[in-house]
């Protein structure tokens, strides 16, 4: 599971391997392949291999790319879990709640603005009531959602 970082989703790399019945490494191919830009949502990847004797095997796994709603919920949960001052937590979660409402109303411009306001608020609090590392993570999360939404 990973977060989208563009409107198209996210480039995901993964490692797979295959061995024949005698434990010798053999080539394996996957569709979609590693390095593919996975769209937002769940995509099933199927990997197949064939040994020298023509025996084949396949395994599948899923890649989940979170869109803005999931990322927004995760960011809100992270803010709550950060242990900030109550007043700061309330302010930041309130901002995110507003963003969610705008998102549900498909008001993209308002969502972009709300996320921008959230970034400003976090940066003002950075080093005061929130740890710099937390602040950086919150800002990165908000900026990533702005990238997904193609905010100006």
């Amino acid at each position: 599971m990973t977060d989208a970082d563009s409107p198209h989703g996210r480039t995901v790399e993964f490692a797979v391997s295959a061995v024949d019945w005698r434990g010798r490494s053999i080539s394996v191919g996957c569709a979609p392949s590693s390095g593919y830009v996975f769209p937002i949502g769940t995509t099933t990847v199927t990997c197949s291999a064939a040994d020298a004797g023509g025996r084949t095997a396949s395994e599948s796994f899923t890649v989940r790319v979170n869109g803005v709603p999931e990322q927004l919920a995760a960011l809100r949960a992270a803010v709550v879990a950060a242990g900030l001052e109550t007043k700061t937590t309330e302010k930041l979660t309130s901002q995110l709640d507003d963003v969610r409402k705008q998102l549900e109303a498909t008001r993209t411009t308002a969502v972009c603005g709300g996320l921008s306001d959230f970034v400003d608020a976090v940066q003002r609090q950075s080093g005061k009531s929130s740890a710099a590392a937390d602040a950086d993570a919150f800002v990165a999360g908000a900026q990533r959602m702005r990238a997904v939404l193609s905010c100006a």
Partner: protein
Amino acid sequence: MLEGTTGSVYASNVDAGFTDDEPAAASWYDGATVWFAWDAPQNGTLQLGADADWETTHVAVFAGEPTAASEPVVSEYAGVTLEVVGGTRYYIAVDTEWSPGDFFVTWSFAGSSAPSNDMWSFAQPIAGVSGGVSGTTVGATAEADEPGDAAHSVWFHWIAPEDGVVVFSVDGGQSVQAYSGFWLGGLKSLGASGPVTAGDVLSVRVAGSTPSPFTLAWQTAPAPAPTVTVPRA
């Protein structure tokens, strides 16, 4: 070439000579040596005679192609009896004592009671993904270079028809071992079971310290499909 297990040929050593590359032990007095060859089909006993009604003959037998320095397995007047090893070519030199002339060469072979697959080079072919075959180590012996220490052994050759894991088993108080390799002194043990790839040639040795009839059985489990490892969801 003397063909078959018994027979007789009319021969002559008139005008026969003796060359430097012939073993000295092949010649009698006059050096008029003529040569014959015979292939032993299996272990057993060979009787050879060179009969001339006017002269005493001399017969010398060499195992394998002789050189000038070779010594005969046996040499006697008129005829010899010797134990032969299956798969070996024997070279027979016949000479006369005083003067050359015509004579009959006769031979008679009696196979020993040893199984035909007593020797690795005469291994009995077996085939199939699975199967069984009866055999015996009664009368069998161990060759000098063969692996294992049991005194009585016989051999089979099996070609893997497909990829898989083959398991050999034997009853009659005998043991079974499979080997890879293409010469007796260089065989590599695989145990009684192991992975094989289609086309692999295995030498299968059934042996026992107490010889006995047996049934050799084998079964090949097909090779499983490859294993693909992917990330956990």
